[in-house]
């Protein structure tokens, strides 16, 4: 759909995930459901018919959950983390120029290097470059609205974009999404996979958003709200917002030889 996407994931020279014999496969930390949205959240209407009714099957994580794809730098184009330039045709896109940056960590506070972070968003008027988005705000000819990057050794990542606008959606009569950027993160294992959304400090629409409010814990909501980071901004040029991401923790070797179900 986005011509940017077509260049992705080409010419792989990635290594195989490290071979991990069963006894050393480790395990993922128990997921804390109290800080995660439930599957069924009636305030968000689409969840009603798309939420399983049966309890999830508990499983000691195994190779399939403890390994995951490895992405290489040669899969990332030079403008993939610059949404101001990666679709520009006749000039820069309209909107507030911003930098979004932060670190990807795990629950032990360890940096997650080499994590693929993908992001996509509406333009400054709140319109996505997507055939199903019919909002009356115009498409920006110079804005594609998606990109990707890999975290560095210290887990840090950064990208440049314009601040997305809020947009209306069909949930209740007058439902509006707060300004947000969608993020997809691959850690070191498939079990760490995370899809989330980042919001912006000070947006009055956050408090009344049915999707935000599926999260049952106010602190967990607050952690999705990126604060302004004046220190990281480029004077006379671009403001910055900070968004740190925490993936599930993963132990190694602690449960060697532990039997299934014990």
């Amino acid at each position, binding site marked *: 759909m986005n011509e940017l996407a077509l260049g992705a994931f080409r010419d792989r020279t990635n290594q195989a*995930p490290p071979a991990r014999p069963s006894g050393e496969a480790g395990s993922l930390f128990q997921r804390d459901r109290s800080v995660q949205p439930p599957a069924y959240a009636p305030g968000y209407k689409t969840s009603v018919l798309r939420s399983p009714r049966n309890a999830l099957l508990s499983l000691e994580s195994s190779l399939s959950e403890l390994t995951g794809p490895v992405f290489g730098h040669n899969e990332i184009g030079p403008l993939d983390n610059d949404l101001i330039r990666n679709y520009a045709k006749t000039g820069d896109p309209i909107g507030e120029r911003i930098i979004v940056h932060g670190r990807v960590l795990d629950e032990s506070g360890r940096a997650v290097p080499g994590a693929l972070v993908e992001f996509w968003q509406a333009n400054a008027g709140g319109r996505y470059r997507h055939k199903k988005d019919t909002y009356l705000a115009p498409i920006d000819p110079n804005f594609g609205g998606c990109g990707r990057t890999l975290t560095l050794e210290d887990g840090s990542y950064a990208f440049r974009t314009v601040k997305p606008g809020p947009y209306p959606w069909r949930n209740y009569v007058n439902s509006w999404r707060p300004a947000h950027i969608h993020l997809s993160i691959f850690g070191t294992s498939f079990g760490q996979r995370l899809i989330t959304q980042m919001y912006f400090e000070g947006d009055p629409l956050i408090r009344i958003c049915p999707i935000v409010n599926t999260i049952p814990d106010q602190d967990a909501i607050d952690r999705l709200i990126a604060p302004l980071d004046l220190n990281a901004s480029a004077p006379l040029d671009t403001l910055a917002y900070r968004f740190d991401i925490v993936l599930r923790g993963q132990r190694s070797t602690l449960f060697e030889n532990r039997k299934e179900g014990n």
Partner: protein
Amino acid sequence: MSIATAAQTIGPYWHLLDDPALADLTRFGATGERIELVGTVRDGDGELVTDGCIELWQPSPAADDVFPGFGRCATDAHGRFRFITLKPGPVPGRGNTLQAPHLAINILARGILTRLYTRAYFEGEPLNAADPLLGLIEDPARRATLIARPVGLATWQMDIRLQGNDETVFIEV
């Protein structure tokens, strides 16, 4: 200790990052037993889910320069997904167990707040009988939701039902 970031839905516009090439894990020339995994995704009313994102990961055969081990596919206007990949072999389980050949599957879509995780096993595989995960599911009808059936020479079908009588078994991960 840090607390894991809350998940949010992938929403209806995730296709901005869709690359249809990712559904073919053999696109870099990997050789082996080439198979197709196809299926449809339906909601609690039996309606097709036409804006879903299905992701596949397999630790076997091991990923290398020509085999990424990872795939991603959008569901189409008929709720269908289709992957081309290599048939996995058995992989070690915890302790001294052996897991039957399977594919790990994520289901993401508008209305799904935290990704749903499941697996696709293969009908007729002798190791299924001793698989540690399948062994946890007592009801044969529920167990069958994780088992792809052959519908062609090298094509396997596993339909996904998000909710309802034939609801797929989803796994805590």
